[in-house]
């Protein structure tokens, strides 16, 4: 039987196991939206296309499945860019469908036309313009395969209106044939054995974990490796939830706002085992003084990540799950040596313990003014272990990374690479759509919140009970902090002078608004929010000029931390 392009698209999505999509209708996707009424797929109408992509992204980060978003041509498509770039930088699997003007009009500056293939080329893993309805099923199949395999990433399909209307016999391909795309899954065995040898010879090893561990669901194997050799583990922002922060071997986060002990451990290490991390500049600080005494083993599925920023002594290209398994296997063949190593590392663990004691993560508590760190600690205390936390970008994001003890993979959704303000609320929306029963909390700042606050409407409409904690300092706090520290307190355009009544804003959308202005109100407000059905905004009036510390100034070495204001 023949089907139209739009029917084929929706049928392909269903066959890929897609249950929920996020989007916004328009002229060139109107056929798809018409057929959507007859499809079992649930569509969540966001209030902005950027939010639709962030929501699909949040859905993907929380579930591990491919997130799907849809937007119309022209402005609808260009509105998706920040969302796509965010997912691209953090290697999140997405399929984005954009409508396009009819093929005969492409290139004519038609109404609502944009060359979205050209625009998204540098921020997608791959993209397709479908010119013939006969290619559509194959392209959708390939798009999902490319998005979720190898180093995951967003794939965009641009679908002209006439291709949606044209019909053809529908057959969904069983397999994918891409002669130019063959990701490496299992690591080279000889390299793995060399890695085992290097590990056994190390005296000051550090395992440095990035978001790849989450992508390949390898946190269990990571833990096995760490416990086996009793080596300390530090994570990036993206790798944070894949190793429990309360674990005795955990060093927390490294880098610009990392812990003193993580940065000291990396600087003094003799072996750095990089696991699905890419040596981002926010992690390494000054390259010349980054882990100067360490040999580096770099395990990553993407060969382009290896030796991009730092020299690497032993690269292993492959899926972390496979590589870590074979590394653990290689080590367990030498049980005596491994036992000896775990013992030999005792002085190293002691040294790290001393650093931990000397400069633990801490802040100056106050009984009169709300410290943002207190809010983060209280949210942790009052929520379940599997609560999903999203953040926007800025000080609140770093405080969350520093003071929230994550323990479960895929519970910390944050824009690490691109650093997108306005990500957290729609990402929380997507995560809550995936897990209606779990607690989902967007920890936000007053600046970031206003970048996608329109999504309150979506939360209320779909009864998605996301709780939003706004750490309100009436500042664009992170930029203000830089201005304070490096620009002689000249607060250029960082003061949000108009105080917003976030409680009233919540009420205007039909959500609940709560406010805390004193430290002793914090716990009660969080408790009340968690007990209130539906979306809730909690506004915390926090210490206005609180800084995120420790801090490695941009361009400085990891051991040159500013520890106190």
């Amino acid at each position, binding site marked *: 039987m023949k089907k139209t392009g739009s029917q084929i698209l929706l049928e392909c999505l269903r066959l890929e196991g897609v249950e929920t999509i996020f989007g916004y209708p328009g002229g060139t996707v109107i056929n798809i939206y018409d057929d959507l009424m007859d499809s079992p797929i649930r569509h969540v109408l966001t209030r902005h296309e950027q939010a639709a992509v962030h929501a699909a992204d949040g859905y993907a980060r929380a579930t591990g499945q491919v997130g799907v978003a849809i937007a119309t041509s022209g402005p609808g498509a260009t509105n998706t860019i920040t969302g796509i770039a965010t997912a691209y930088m953090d290697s999140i699997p997405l399929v984005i469908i954009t409508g396009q003007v009819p093929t005969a009009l492409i290139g004519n500056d038609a109404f609502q036309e944009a060359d979205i293939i*050209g625009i998204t*080329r*540098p921020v997608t*893993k791959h993209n397709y313009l479908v010119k013939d309805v006969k290619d559509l099923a194959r392209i959708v199949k390939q798009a999902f395969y*490319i998005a979720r395999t190898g180093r995951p990433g967003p794939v965009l399909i641009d679908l002209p209106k006439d291709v949606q209307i044209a019909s053809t016999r529908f057959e969904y391909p069983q397999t994918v044939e891409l002669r*130019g795309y063959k990701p490496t899954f299992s690591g080279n065995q000889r390299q793995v054995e060399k890695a085992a040898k290097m590990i056994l010879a190390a005296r000051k090893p550090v395992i440095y974990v990035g978001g790849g561990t989450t992508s390949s669901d390898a946190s269990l194997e990571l833990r096995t490796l760490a416990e086996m050799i009793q080596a300390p583990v530090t994570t990036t922002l993206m790798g944070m939830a894949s190793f429990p922060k309360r674990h005795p071997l955990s060093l927390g986060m490294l880098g610009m706002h990392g812990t003193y002990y993580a940065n000291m451990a990396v600087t003094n290490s003799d072996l750095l085992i990089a696991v699905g991390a890419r040596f981002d500049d926010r992690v390494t600080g000054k390259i010349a003084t980054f882990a100067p005494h360490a040999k580096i083993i770099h395990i990553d599925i993407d060969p*382009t990540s290896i*030796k991009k920023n730092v020299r690497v002594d032993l690269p292993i290209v492959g899926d972390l799950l496979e590589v870590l398994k074979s590394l653990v296997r290689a080590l367990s063949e030498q049980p005596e040596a491994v036992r000896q190593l775990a013992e030999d590392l005792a002085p190293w663990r002691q040294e790290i313990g001393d650093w931990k004691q000397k400069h633990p993560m801490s802040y100056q508590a106050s009984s009169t003014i709300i410290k943002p760190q207190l809010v983060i600690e209280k949210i942790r205390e009052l929520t379940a272990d599997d609560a999903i936390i999203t953040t926007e970008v800025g000080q609140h994001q770093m405080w969350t990374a520093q003071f929230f003890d994550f323990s479960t993979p895929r519970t910390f959704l944050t824009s690490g690479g691109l650093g997108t303000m306005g990500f957290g609320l729609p990402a929380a929306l997507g995560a809550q759509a995936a897990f209606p029963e779990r607690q989902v909390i967007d920890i936000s700042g007053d600046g970031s919140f206003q970048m996608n606050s329109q999504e309150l409407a979506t939360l209320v409409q779909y009864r998605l009970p996301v709780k939003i904690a706004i750490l309100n300092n009436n500042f664009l706090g992170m930029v203000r902090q830089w201005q304070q520290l490096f620009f002689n307190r000249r607060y250029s355009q960082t003061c949000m002078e108009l105080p917003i009544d976030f409680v009233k804003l919540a009420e205007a959308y039909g959500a609940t608004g709560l406010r805390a202005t004193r430290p002793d109100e914090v716990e009660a407000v969080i408790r009340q929010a968690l007990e209130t059905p539906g979306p809730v905004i909690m506004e915390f009036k926090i210490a206005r000029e609180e800084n995120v510390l420790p801090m490695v100034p941009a361009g400085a070495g990891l051991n040159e931390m500013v520890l106190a204001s």
Partner: protein
Amino acid sequence: MRHTISVLVENEFGVLARVAGLFSGRGFNIESLSVAPTLDPSISRMTIVTSGDDQILEQITKQLNKLIDTIKVIDFTGQNFVEREMAMVKVSAEENTRAEVLRIADIFRAKVVDVTARSYTIEVTGAPDKIDALIELLRPMGIKEIVRSGPVVLGRGPKGWRGAD
């Protein structure tokens, strides 16, 4: 250091933009580029000349390999290969220089492919430095216009790459 890279890609629209974007997005330079289909019409072969240190070249070849449409990448640096470029040079040929232009062309085994009362168009093939030399010799005669194809290369020896296995 100068590198010559062959890239076998899917013969589809947009592939050239992906390759070019990969260079421009990282501030890498393309010195020359030539593209045409191979024996298998679904595959195009690009020959790219670029330069950079080892780390940049490693990134370039890895990034080229990462493109979904890329089937194979060969960096010929340090390998034994034949390199040829074609050029056409339109040079003025006045009364007093006509014979000299022809003599120079002859030495380089170049052909005259178009002739007028006041000009010759000369076609020459060879390694890029041979073409440079010809151009230098013709320059005093007055070069009106020039086009170079950019080099193409093939590895020496009996082995050949015929298509995706």
